[in-house]
Every structure is written in structure tokens, then in C-alpha cells.
């Protein structure tokens, strides 16, 4: 099995979290119900926060090549 560059793996993981978060937010924006507001902030926001945090962590923790 070929070694995967940790930075590449982190980027893909970050990207996946952000895509999930953004899709949840896009779906919530279609609805005007209070539950959509809660899901937008709690679930969508959580994925976005996690994605951005992992990305920032990955760029500061990966050694320069």
C-alpha cells in the first residue's frame, strides 16, 4: 500500500468535513422553519468549525518540505 502524504490526507479530511457542513447549511437555507435554524447553527456550524480548525492545525503542524 503506498504511503499517503499526511498533508494530503489532512486536506482531504478537512475538505470532506467542510463539504458536509456546507451542504447541511445549503439545505437548511431552503427551509424557513425554526428547526432549520437550529440545524444550520448546531450541525452545519459544527462541521465548518471542525473543518477550518483541522485545516489550520494541519498547515501549522506539517513540517516544511
Amino acid at each position: 500500500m503506498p504511503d499517503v502524504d499526511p498533508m494530503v490526507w489532512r486536506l482531504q479530511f478537512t475538505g470532506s468535513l467542510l463539504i458536509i457542513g456546507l451542504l447541511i447549511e445549503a439545505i437548511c437555507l431552503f427551509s424557513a422553519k425554526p428547526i432549520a435554524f437550529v440545524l444550520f447553527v448546531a450541525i452545519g456550524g459544527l462541521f465548518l468549525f471542525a473543518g477550518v480548525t483541522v485545516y489550520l492545525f494541519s498547515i501549522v503542524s506539517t513540517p516544511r518540505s
Partner: protein
Amino acid sequence: MPLGTTLIVILVLFSAALIGVLVARPAVTATRGGKILAFLVLFFLPILCGAMGISSEMERSKTTAFCLSCHTMEAYGKSLYVDDPSHIPAAHFQNHRVPADEACYTCHTDYAMFGTLKVKLDGLRHVYIYYLGTPPAPENIKLYEPYNNRECLHCHLGARSFEEGATHTADPATLRAIKSNSLSCLSSGCHDVVHDISHLKEAKFWKEKN
């Protein structure tokens, strides 16, 4: 859906597509330009989307339709159409003394510092009770705290009808008491017909002409 919200949805989907390109082709980030692009796409755009989305959702949460979308609030929405000028919410709504599309929020927000945040947190409590708790019957719903005159005075303070009204000026102490919230506008027996939902069946309703 409002145009602003549509544009935000387009931005969100565009951002997701760009992130998808980076996930599928991470080699793009090997160059200096690719790293800058990755920073914009993985940091700047998601934060921009989140901030714009929250702003849009906050504005939408002020609308009358948003508040009345819960089944429990139906009777309260109906009470806005009672054809009787002594019904304070109905008279305000029908005569556009409050913006009709933000009627609930205009009267039930808190015009103090951090008031909007406070009422949004109260709103979250409503959602929690609605979905995970036992919502009370509409006629048993009570305010968390007595209605503060501050919310009325936000618009009426300084208005001639308020400052020079015969009842308000009959006793010099009355106006001072109203302004200091020691004499309630609503529960003192003066303007006490609010959302009288227990008598909705007998009420006559106004029909809005389109």
C-alpha cells in the same frame, strides 16, 4: 426564497464544489499559488458562507411567518386578524403600527443591550420544548417575564398621542409611572386585551384585501 438567500445558497454550493476539486486533486496545492487557493477555499470561503448564512437566518427568524410556522403559535397568528381595535396586537398588526412581516419580533423582542441575543436564546428554548419537551396548550403559554413597557415606549415615547393623551395626562404621576415601568401598559387594566385566544371562537375576523 428571497434573492439574498438564493445568492448565499449559490455561494455555499460554489464553495463546496471548489473544495471538492481540492479533495479530488490535492496535488493542486503543491505550488505556491495552489497553497493560496487552498487557504481561500478551505478557510476564507467557509467562514464567509457561515457568517452570511447566519446573518440571513437571523433576519429570517424575525419574520412573522417564521414564528407562526410552529403549530402551537397558530392561534396567536389568528388573533392578529381579530376585527376589534381594542385588541392591541390585532390593531397594531392590521394598521401597520408594527411591520406586518415582523409583527411578533417587533413587540416581543427586548430593546435593551443584548436584547436580540436574549430573545434568540429564548427562541432556542421554544424549539427545544417544541421538539423534545411537552409544549403547553396555546392558552397556557405565558411570557418568561412580565411584559416590559420599554417595548411599547420604543415606538410610543415622544408620540403626541402618548405624551398628550387625556388618560395619560389626567394625573401627572401616571406618565412618570408608565415611563418607569411601575404602571404596566398592558396589565393595569388600560390596554389589557392582547392575544385573547380563549375567545377566538366568538371573535369576528378581518380579511385582508389583496
